[in-house]
């Protein structure tokens, strides 16, 4: 009996020990997992910064030139994690929102900067920038700086910025005996488009691909210059207002009559393709499109005229977008991060790009001094002066006819907007296809917008 008990207790112990081994090995596994996402070390000695960025050409230039920074800052190494725009948004939002601490510097669009700033996720760069006299913070383009500032805190600094303008094929206009004014109205543009539209050439290319950053970037500027807006001053939705409806009706009719074929497939890239092959007479889109259009390999280089965004009720209707560098509060290397951020957004960096990579590759739209640099103006004479005019002319605090409770032009700076814009733009795809009417779609949009508006009250 005694012996039996001994055996039992012995085997119990063995069993427990084995179980313990099993659990502890699982524990090690779990610890390994949490270690992988862990934060960076404290900033003593050599520091490695992780920078999350979008894989645009300007950012690739930054990565190419980071050696110059590392040479002058031997203690700091910068690792680039480049992603496609949507992936970047997902990855960085998740990391910052869940306090992951994976990145020391993040590339943030101007839509997210105020939202993240208000969530207390980003370091206020204002005091750092002002303390650094060489940085010359007042040189940042005023509308861009305004869009990145919440309650006097500057939560990010612009790496490059853009507005929107109308591009037109001068050869086609000359052949048809048409003349483009410097400040065209949408009615004039619609007239030109319908005249120039043929079976082979679209009168105008306008984005139709669903997405708040695709279709609704140009369309929101049209809505605003038609006198409409997503919300009034008290966050009441105005999506089915007569002005909003008229603007969407105008836009979809213009695309159906004289726009590109298959609008739902057509976003920035598709329009660029069409326009640079000479298959569209006009294109209303980002000022950053001018670079690739004038580049070698474009069939229309040198043949393109650039004028202000078409208007109806307002003076200026360009949008405002910037890719900015910001430092998340979760970073343990904030000082070193600011060293890099201030270098990458400085006049010195712009000159470095100009002298080593060529002046046409300078990141535009971030600093006033860029547009006073004779070498840049010579390299980008076709579009640089007008880009500067538009970027200084737009007003992100009140882009439309009526005052609005947010700062931003082609988007509404609230977390709910990307969802709202995405859903309404998907329904507008049904209008392009003739499956639904503008009134119906915007009545549905009004309900969604009201929910988003109520969340702000």
């Amino acid at each position, binding site marked *: 009996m005694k012996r039996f008990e001994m055996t039992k207790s012995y085997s119990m112990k063995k069993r427990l020990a*084995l179980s313990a081994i*099993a659990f502890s090995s*699982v524990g090690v596994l779990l610890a390994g997992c949490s270690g992988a996402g862990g934060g960076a070390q404290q900033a003593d000695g050599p520091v490695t910064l992780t920078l999350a960025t979008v894989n645009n050409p300007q950012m690739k230039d930054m990565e190419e030139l980071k050696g110059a920074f590392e040479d002058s800052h031997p203690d700091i190494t910068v690792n680039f994690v480049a992603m496609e725009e949507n992936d970047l948004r997902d990855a960085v*939002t998740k990391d910052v*929102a869940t306090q992951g601490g994976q990145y020391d510097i993040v590339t943030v669009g101007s839509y997210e900067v105020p939202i993240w700033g208000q*969530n207390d996720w980003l370091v206020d760069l204002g005091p750092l920038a002002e303390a650094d006299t060489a940085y010359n913070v007042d040189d940042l383009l005023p509308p861009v700086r305004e869009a990145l500032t919440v309650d006097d805190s500057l939560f990010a600094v612009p790496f490059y910025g853009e507005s929107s303008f109308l591009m037109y094929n001068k050869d086609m206009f000359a052949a048809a005996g048409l003349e483009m004014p410097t400040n065209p109205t949408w009615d004039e543009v619609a007239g030109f488009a319908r005249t120039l539209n043929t079976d082979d050439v679209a009168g105008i290319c306008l984005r139709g691909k669903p997405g708040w950053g695709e279709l609704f970037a140009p369309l929101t500027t049209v809505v605003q210059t038609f006198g409409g807006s997503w919300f009034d001053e008290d966050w009441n939705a105005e999506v089915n207002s007569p002005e909003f409806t008229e603007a969407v009706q105008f836009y979809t009719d213009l695309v159906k009559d004289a726009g590109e074929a*298959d609008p*739902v497939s057509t976003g920035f890239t598709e329009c660029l393709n069409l326009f640079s092959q000479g298959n569209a007479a006009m294109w209303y889109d980002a000022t950053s499109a001018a670079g690739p259009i004038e580049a070698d390999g474009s069939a229309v280089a040198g043949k393109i005229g650039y004028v202000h965004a078409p208007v109806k009720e307002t003076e200026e209707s360009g949008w405002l977008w910037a890719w900015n560098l910001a430092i998340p509060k979760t970073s343990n290397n904030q000082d070193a991060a600011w060293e890099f951020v201030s270098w990458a957004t400085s006049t010195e960096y712009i000159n470095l790009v100009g002298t080593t990579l060529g002046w046409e590759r300078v990141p535009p739209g971030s600093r006033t001094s860029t547009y006073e640099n004779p070498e840049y103006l010579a390299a980008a004479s076709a579009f640089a002066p007008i880009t500067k005019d538009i970027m200084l002319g737009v007003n992100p605090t009140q882009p439309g006819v009526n005052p609005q409770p947010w700062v931003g032009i082609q988007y509404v700076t609230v977390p709910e907007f990307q969802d709202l814009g995405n859903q309404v733009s998907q329904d507008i795809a049904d209008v392009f*296809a003739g499956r639904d009417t503008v009134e119906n779609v915007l009545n549905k949009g009004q309900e969604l917008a009201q929910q988003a508006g109520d969340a702000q009250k």
Partner: protein
Amino acid sequence: MTAPDLIVAEPAHDPAPAASRTLRRPPKPELSAGQKKALRLARTLVWPAIVVAILVTQIPFLVTIYYSFQNWNLMRPGSRGFAGFDNYVTVFTGGAFMQSLSATVVITGSSIVLSVLFGLGIALLLNRKFFGQGLARTLVITPFLMMPAAAALIFKWSMLDANVGMVNWGLSILGVDPVQWNTDFPALTVIMVLTWQYTPFMMLILLAGLQSQSKETLEAASVDGAGPIRSFLHMTLPHLRQYIELAVLLGGIMLLQVFDPIAIMTRGTGGTKTLSYLLYERAFVGLEIGEAAAYGVITVLLTIIVASVALRLLFKIFSSEGAKS
């Protein structure tokens, strides 16, 4: 605990001489103390595997269930909290769910039916000896080996582009006006891509079925005077029954998760917002983690129901037909 018990019991009494006696149903053998000890050790050794299995398979789902009861928007860190059944109410009253469910059924269903039909046709053609049979088979399989995103991009830019697409060019030769595929026929566009990709998969399974059919039976049928159509309908098709079932089942599981062609080509417009795309939108565009989790839980439940009820029903129809022959 019963399942692992059975598994460990196996090696413990297998070498015992008692088990070698031919009994229709061996009674539970009496175990000696030593055997019991060995059994206990064996059971203990299984523990790590069970723990890992539970962790790996069930924890993600349990966490999803937990999230589905949370009010959590990634962009509003302050407002996180317990939401009760709010997210489930949103799922069922929002209207997006039923639309998405029907989109999923239409797209998955028609893609499976079409690819089984095309796959059967191609399998019948390939199931005969001819010069270059191996090469032909490899060529036909290629679409299935392609990454889904790459396939969607090829269709978007090379095949269905309104200006330079090959399909519209082909139609123009026939005198048909250019078609705006994504704008006017979004669901059809996605079904086309999926059918193109999954036909080879169905073909492979059905070809395996055809090659396992005995030549003697078919010969006997033709001696008895059955023509090729009759022997196909009454001999080959019943023989292929279980292969078709397997193809439909596997195809259904894979196609339910389809995401790439929708994200790349139609962006969820015009009845192409399948459940997986809707889920992605709720989580990454809406940033509503709780709501997306609720959609996820409902989708899992639905998939289980569909897999167990509908497929069993479908198989019953097939088996009763098969039983006749």
